[in-house]
């Protein structure tokens, strides 16, 4: 017997749970205090937004909302790694990346508040909107990457997908296309351990989700998704490769969903308090704060001031959201087609007449 092929999956971590820098080979980014503080501030902002959005839903001012609690490092790292010209294809809790791309918190709230105008957001006009059906967005990113390759544009498409999403055919189809066509594509699996109630171990017998990329023939790595430094390094490498024509990559970001799946879920039904308590020990904000404070780059006073500033900014966004009037009834018709077919003109007139009473 001989070996036809053999593979291994590397695991990337620089900052451990306590915020200690591991090993001798720390990247320059680990010493880039300004960039780290900026990222930290965005992570805090995202968490403040998240908490207030949940509170809005609990008080009846927002529809079902998908929280990103505990995944801030993964998303903030993605947002800072992409350029404006790149295309981002998110799923539906990717706010930390999207805020950096210009999406306004009020637009996130509009979408979950039942108004399509949230998808017509202030981020890059070519970015895809939130994607609910699971993993289908991976193929949109692959299609975008194929467009860039055909037009010879130095752009990259990046999709995020959950751990549950890696069970879907669209995910495999996308990474397979990425390999087969050598596309400028990066797929980040945000492995937050749960697909609603189904734990990661029940999703697949595969030891890692990263190794699914091996079957597609693309470079694949597992990363501590709660370690901003490791996420930055992995993304920077994958995006540079893609941009320079070296093809697609898969990054499995290992993190934990500290919240319920959405505000319509109660995670206490399917996981223990002990497990969640242990997960809080590994969460990304605490560890980055400890690291920054260890370098004297962030003080308790700065922390207090910044959190107050985040609250002020988010409250202003919430006010803007709450002040946004519902769209006119005709809005549901007006963008169905570039030109309204006769049938729809009649239905539009009917809806308008009914709305006027």
């Amino acid at each position: 017997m001989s070996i036809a092929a053999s593979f291994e999956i590397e695991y990337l971590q620089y900052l451990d749970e306590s915020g200690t820098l591991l090993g001798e080979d720390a990247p320059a980014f680990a010493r880039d205090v300004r960039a780290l503080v900026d990222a930290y501030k965005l992570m805090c902002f995202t968490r403040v937004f998240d908490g207030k959005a949940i509170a809005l839903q609990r008080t009846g001012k927002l529809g079902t909302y998908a929280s990103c609690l505990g995944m801030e490092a993964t998303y903030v790292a993605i947002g800072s790694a992409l350029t404006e010209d790149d295309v981002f294809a998110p799923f539906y809790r990717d706010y930390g990346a999207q805020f950096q791309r210009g999406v306004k918190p009020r637009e996130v709230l509009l979408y979950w508040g039942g108004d399509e105008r949230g998808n017509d957001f202030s981020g890059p006009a070519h970015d895809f909107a939130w994607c609910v059906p699971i993993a289908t967005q991976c193929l949109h990113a692959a299609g975008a990457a194929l467009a860039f390759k055909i037009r010879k544009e130095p752009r990259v498409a990046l999709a995020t997908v959950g751990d549950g999403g890696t069970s879907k055919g669209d995910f495999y189809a996308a990474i397979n296309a990425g390999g087969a066509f050598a596309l400028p594509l990066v797929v980040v699996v945000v492995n937050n351990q749960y697909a609603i109630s189904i734990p990661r171990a029940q999703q697949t017998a595969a030891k890692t989700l990263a190794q699914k990329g091996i079957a597609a023939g693309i470079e694949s790595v597992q990363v501590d998704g709660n370690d901003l430094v490791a996420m930055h390094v992995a993304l920077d490498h994958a995006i540079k490769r893609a941009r320079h024509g070296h093809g697609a990559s898969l990054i499995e970001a290992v993190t934990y969903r500290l919240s319920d799946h959405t505000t319509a879920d109660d995670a206490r039904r399917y996981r223990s308090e002990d497990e969640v308590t242990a997960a809080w020990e590994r969460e990304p904000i605490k560890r980055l704060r400890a690291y920054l404070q260890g370098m004297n780059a962030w003080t308790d006073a700065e922390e207090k001031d910044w959190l107050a500033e985040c609250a002020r900014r988010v409250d202003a966004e919430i006010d803007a959201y709450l002040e946004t009037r519902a769209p006119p009834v005709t809005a549901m018709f007006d963008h169905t087609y570039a030109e309204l077919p006769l049938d729809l003109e009649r239905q539009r007139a009917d809806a308008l007449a009914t709305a006027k009473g």
Partner: protein
Amino acid sequence: MPQINLIEGITLALAHEMARDPAVVVLGEDVGVNGGVFRATVGLQQKFGAERVIDTPLDEAMIAGLAVGLAAQGMRPVAEAQFEGFMYPMIDQIASHAARMRTRTRGRLTCPAVFRAPWGGGIHAPEHHSEAIEALFTNIAGLRVVIASSPGRAYGLLLAAIRDPDPVIFFEPKRIYRQYKEDVADDGEALPLDVCFVLRDGWDVTLVTWGAQVKETLEAADALAAEGIRAEVIDVATLKPLDFDTIHESVKKTHRCVIVHEAPYTGGFGGEIAARLAEHALYDLHAPVERVAGYDVPMPLYKLEMNYLPNVARIVAAAKRALAAG
């Protein structure tokens, strides 16, 4: 002017649009080197290169999802499913994304993609190669659904589908791909996607159909004419959005209507046309609307497929029932 058959009309339209618009790309299984299993894309890869005539891995969901991504980023993809029976894995991407891309982003992103497939039965093909699934798509808001039934209409309607700013499902009745040739000028003239085509004038009864059944329906009109009955024949061509006015105008004249389609009877698009006749043309009708459709059974394997498909005798009988009533 070249004499071409229906599938050559498809090839001619693809070549014309690829030459005219660099954003047009063709993707699917075996569309490149092989020129497509029916030869619809023959010669295109040699002419336009492998980057624009793309042989994909074998996954229809991938083809559809790539087309959505390409279309949203400024390309004009024409995605091929080798047979309509292989389109089911595409439906999630088509319904959840292509059809609603424009409206859910309030026009920020759009999806000008064409999803084309050989359609329908009657060629002694294996299982899953002979379906009539148009009604699955006519209930999806945001799509156009088109079926070409002649070489000239294949050319003109496909040009229109590729140029349309919204997603189009484009079916090609494979049974009549090579039925006959006609003169088709490669003049780049698109046909409208919102009208029915009146193929034959008449005043006794209106026969409404689409796809390969245009052949049997015209033959039925001939048979009726031999008995002195003048049937008007309408090829709906674009099912969605439906040009009901053309059908209604005809029924105002004939007062009788027979709808012919090879898709199953229950939930077939004939039901939509019959419902509109009931809503808007009840007092113009002198007889109940007749429907001649496929039976409510899975498409049988080919030993029985011609027994499944509507035929001239059934269409003639339905027309005579309509004429005898009222």
